[in-house]
């Protein structure tokens, strides 16, 4: 009985210590400073000589990458993927038409959107907003929701994946059921390598990292 009591006390003490340690780490991380990395910050490290590790300028940046924290993407217009799929019968590559041809899937330009939206749903507020972008000759500042940080040194090419008939949803989740697209799959190296091994694709380092 006494032993068991001691053990629970020790466990509690360990948990408390770990909690304090984790708290301290977080505090230090944010005290040390550094920007929260976004997926589109390339080349983020240009000109800064701050070094925590070769891949991270600050401890905070390293922790943020380790925990996979990304700021919530804020889209200029709440683009409904589901509506376009279910009501307009559009497929992914109808708008992201770079995917089959090259590295970048592409977010279509406002001109491409206006091909349809000159006539369709012109009374809706988001479309009026879109039209105002078009009239000003501006692109809506769409935010990317996927992307590696520059220090990952990943070069990805959509085309060979599309040619191999890898479904878009394998890497992007079922976007057809999303209103605003959100990151649904973690693009970790183990995720990529597992699929490459399954499909007898090369897992040589320089297939992706160069």
């Amino acid at each position, binding site marked *: 009985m006494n032993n068991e009591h001691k053990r629970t006390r020790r466990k509690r003490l360990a948990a408390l210590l770990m909690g304090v340690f984790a708290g301290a780490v977080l505090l230090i991380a944010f005290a040390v400073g550094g920007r929260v990395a976004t997926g589109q910050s390339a080349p983020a490290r240009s000109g800064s000589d701050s070094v925590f590790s070769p891949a991270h300028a600050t401890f905070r940046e390293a922790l943020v990458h380790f925990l996979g924290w990304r700021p919530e993407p804020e889209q200029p217009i709440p683009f409904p993927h589901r509506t376009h799929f279910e009501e307009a019968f559009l497929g992914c590559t109808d708008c992201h038409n770079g995917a089959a041809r090259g590295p970048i899937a592409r977010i279509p330009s406002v001109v491409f959107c206006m091909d349809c939206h000159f006539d369709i749903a012109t009374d809706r507020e988001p479309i009026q907003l879109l039209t105002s972008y078009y009239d000003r000759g501006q692109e809506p500042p769409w935010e990317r929701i996927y992307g590696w940080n520059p220090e990952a040194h990943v070069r990805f090419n959509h085309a060979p994946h599309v040619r191999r008939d890898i479904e878009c949803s394998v890497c992007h989740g079922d976007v057809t059921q999303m209103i605003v697209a959100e990151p649904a799959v973690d693009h970790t190296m183990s995720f990529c390598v597992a699929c490459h091994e399954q499909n007898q694709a090369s897992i*040589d380092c320089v297939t992706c990292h160069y």
Partner: protein
Amino acid sequence: MPRWGMTVDLDRCTGCEACVTACHAENNIPTVGPEEAARGRAMHWIRVERYWEGEFPDVRLKFRPVFCQQCDNAPCEPVCPTYASYHTDDGLNAQVYNRCIGTRYCANACSYNVRFFNFHNPEWDRPLDLQLNPDVSVREVGVMEKCTFCIQRIQAARIEARADDEEGAIEDGALQPACAQSCTANALVFGDLDDPESRASRLSRSPRGGKLLEELGAEPSVTYLQKGDWYESGGG
């Protein structure tokens, strides 16, 4: 699987350094400024060495472009503690930036002095940052970098070749690194050394051919061509 190699015709090279410029532009290689350069930290994946021969007034100027020799028995590879420097199946000495922890052992082991360390984070003043090549990563402080034979072009050509046919091979001449592409004198020829018909392969068998520092046994994939005896004329 091809085995990539290159030939450099020293009798053709005019020393114009178009290859150096092209390489910098293609591979996002930073310039370090005069102070750092004076400390031996200049970064050029390819450099053109200059040699004077003979006595005045009977002198001759010779140029020799030097870049990573992509050795088959590379001294840089076994010394890397993190396997950042390794040999690919197609005969390249690859450098994986993610793995590099900056020990610089590879640069010390390299007999050709063609590996470069990032002592600082690279910087491109506006608007020069807009010319960065998106197909190549920007290396950060603390990692080693070197000539890749334009791996981004090799990968792109491979993907292109396999678009119609899974076994599709890259045609000779369809793929060129930036230096060979920009060489006005056609001194640099890139190709598959395992294909006996490729231009690079035929040139590498030329009696004019020789390797840099061959006696070290690193077995470079780059062959230098020049008339006359190699060692006497300073080729070795």
